[in-house]
């Protein structure tokens, strides 16, 4: 067991974890942060995407011990003071989700994408979300949601 201390969604937490424990398992099983989900075991689907020190990572691809001392933001910590993040708002507004299982990862990745490129083209959005799978929406409305969140004009 290894002792780790980190900040998750603004709260300081500290636990003994097995070295092999994945960050996503730590979030879900130890902290009850079940908003972040597991969709595959090959890091293809991106459903588990969170921010580690402000950058998106697939939390199935990070060991909990690697997050020691870091600041982690999950979908549960994105809204501030009861106000939805603009990307969350845009996903609802544009019907960018159906079953909602990929949504936490898709939103966290979209936030990261817009942090790096505030006015992306459609192609840049599509490439930026390539690591996140969705089976419901056909991506059409997800792309629109990201365009909307970026403040750009959207054609239906």
């Amino acid at each position, binding site marked *: 067991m290894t002792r780790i201390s980190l900040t998750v969604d603004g709260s300081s937490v500290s636990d003994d974890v*097995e070295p092999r424990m994945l960050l996503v*398992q730590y979030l*879900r*099983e130890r902290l*009850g*942060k*079940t*908003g*972040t*989900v*597991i*969709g*595959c*075991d*090959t890091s*293809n*689907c991106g*459903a588990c995407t969170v921010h580690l020190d402000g950058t998106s990572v697939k939390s199935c691809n990070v060991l909990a011990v690697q997050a020691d001392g870091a600041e982690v933001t*999950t*979908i*549960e910590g*994105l*809204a501030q003071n009861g106000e*939805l993040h603009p990307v*969350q708002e845009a*996903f*609802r*507004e544009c*019907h960018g*989700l*159906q*079953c*909602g*299982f*990929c*949504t*936490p990862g898709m*939103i966290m990745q979209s936030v990261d994408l817009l942090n790096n490129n505030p006015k992306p083209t*459609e192609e840049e*959005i*599509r*490439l930026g*979300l*390539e*690591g*996140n*799978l*969705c*089976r*419901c*929406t*056909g*991506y*059409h*409305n*997800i*792309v*629109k949601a990201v365009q909307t969140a970026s403040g750009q004009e959207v054609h239906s």
Partner: protein
Amino acid sequence: MTVTDERPSDAIEKEIGRDRRRKEDQRLITGRTRWTDNIVLPGILHLAMVRSPFAHATITSIDVSAAKAATNVVDVLSGSDFGAELGAIINAWPITPDQVTPAHSPMPADRVAFAGEIVAVVVARTAAEARDAAELVEVEYDELPPALDLKKSAADEVLAHPDLGTNKSALWVFDSGEAGTGGNVEDAIAKARTDGIVIEREYRQQRLIPAFMEPRSVVVDPTGEQYTMWSATQIPHIVRFALAATTGVPESKIRVIAPDVGGGFGGKLQVTPEEWIAWAVGRRLGKPVKYTETRSESLMSAHHGRDQWQKLTLSAEKDGTVTGLKVELLADLGAYVAIVGGGVPVLGAFMFNAIYKFPAYHFSVQTVLTNKAWTDAYRGAGRPEATYAIERLMSELAAEVGVDPLEIREKNWIKHEEFPFTTVAGLEYDSGNYEAATAKAKEMFGYDELRAEQKRRRDAGDTVQLGIGISTFTEMCGLAPSRVLGQLDYGAGGWEHASVRMLATGKVEVVTGASAHGQGHETAFSQIVADRLGVAFEDVEVLHGDTQISHKGLDTYGSRSLVVGGEALVKAADKVVEKAKPIAAHLLEASVDDLEFSGGRFTVRGTDQGMAIGEIATAVFAAHNLPDNTEPSIDAEATYDPVNFNYPHGTHLCAMEVDTETGAVKMRKYVCVDDIGNIVNPLIVSGQVHGGLVQGIAQALWEEAVYDDSGTLVSGSFVDYLLPTAADTISFDIEHTTTPSLTNTLGTKGVGEAGTIASTPAVVNAVVDAVRHLGVNDIQMPCTPERVWKAINGPGSGGATEGAAMPHFESGGAAGNQEQPGQSSTEGAGA
């Protein structure tokens, strides 16, 4: 006391037709979700499954001693540890009386019939410990030869279940001559061979995997008086029934909950070994247990879809007027007959004739057992296969006659003034307007300009050629009426149940038996009830997916929720109004005959007196002042059984660019105009269409479940099973035309499967159209660059792609489920 907004009728905007944002989204976008895997109960134990690595083998011994001794392992159990309480996995649709159906134990003790079948289960305090210990279970097998290739299995070369003596499960036949719905197809074909056109093709429907994003998960809590199962399922009511029917627990002692469910697409329309094993282990140990599959387990052992060979013969006159259609299918059931099983191809049996006026039709399907994962419903279930075949054939016919593929369709389709139309398959299409949808789609697509560009590129000999694909589809949805399902030997009905509860504060609770998993029932059903009762959208709460709350229902599949479940809701709401009416008359001191109900208010004709339905609910709650002998309730329920299926249709146009040097394909434009009757929520409809399109496009271009020659699924992870990403797809142009359905009050038609059903042939037709001038008339799906290149550069349809499909193996072919090129021939006019 009433807090409901009063909404005078003149101020009310109709809810139906509004693009309401979804009620479901707030919790889904903030991570406040209730996926089954999120559920933790005091003392919960975790399960891990030990699965067979062999496709077909006898189990000779199972040694669990090392696993049992591992840290925090509570128990390790195999099939022989259980008796009848383990239950059985049922097939609810024996398609013929003599169907050969292998017994299906959730955990067989003696023999495994596909790679991934469960042979033992480990119970431990954590999921990681359970999985670690599963590695320590020693299972000895004697390998048996596996039946893998569909055609060879149909010839009984190797038996999937030796004790059954055959792989042939059932032969199901429809013949229009015998049914009296049309002529004799052999006569039509014989005539066409002498003076018309005969198109003969063999198409492959590759094996697909539904690949819902949420892996399946099940929690069983046996500690209450009712045993509770949470499951990531589309069908909580059917799971409850099947548990009762097969495990000896009375139905009244079973509660099944489908909490938030992360997609299904038919893939969660199943009763699963994992559910049954969790149920048995929980009962045995008296402790709550949880099992969540890995993605690899999901791809390997959750049911697959499609997997057919389609032998097709279309006859026509020289001018392209169709005279007959003969369809002979081989359908791969996999190792067992799943809950719908052979019923999937039968659902397509009535749809091959599609929108066209075939005078003669013959359909047969031979279902076949193999040693691969079992197959069952996947979005469209039977109808994509039918639509693919006929829409490909109609384009072939057009090429043969030498006319535009839209022209050949128009020549043969049912004209809008001919509805209602009884088809050669015996169905009555109630409404539709193929001309209108096609005209709109052509205009949006810029059809004539793209045809001109195609010609320019062809004339110039461009390396990148343009193809235009067409699909003028229809489908049957709703999976009802019950009477017809009974005639087809389906094990259940097709009705749906709803109830409306008028709360004391004027709020409304709606309970539906349809169990959503992403479709937006909570929003769309709220809109329906808000309109019907004249209450605010926000005041309606839709409850579903828990058999303790929604005690009666048939769940969600087959594009049935709105057209069947929505109609049940309408009927229940109308009963509420009827029950409220005499009470309103009493309270308003008026005659019932003088009351009108509109905009949520009962008014006395010719006066300004009135009362909102919420106020009546409050008065009924108090029950102080009701008419004599009146039950103090205006709650109501209804169970609705439709009179007919439901027939959405549409015109889909696809432009594909094909690089003739590399075989690479690229989608340039996709337009669809779907007629789904009246639309309740256009935003939700658009989402259903977009998602459906991509699943159908993915069959055409990317997805394929591939087995190697020992029966191992080599596309068993998301590295190998190619789900499209945002970078692979484009934005779509979708629109609608509207001819209301005449078989339900709301005039709606199903939309859940339409995009998937329509898009696959549109895409393949476009790819073939781009290279037809190079001598290509078929490319097998998925149309990988390798297949396209091979089709351009050699005979056949691109054939097997085992090299590309099996990057992990140095040699050996993908003999498992592939891949002879389909046979084809054409006789007649230009041949």
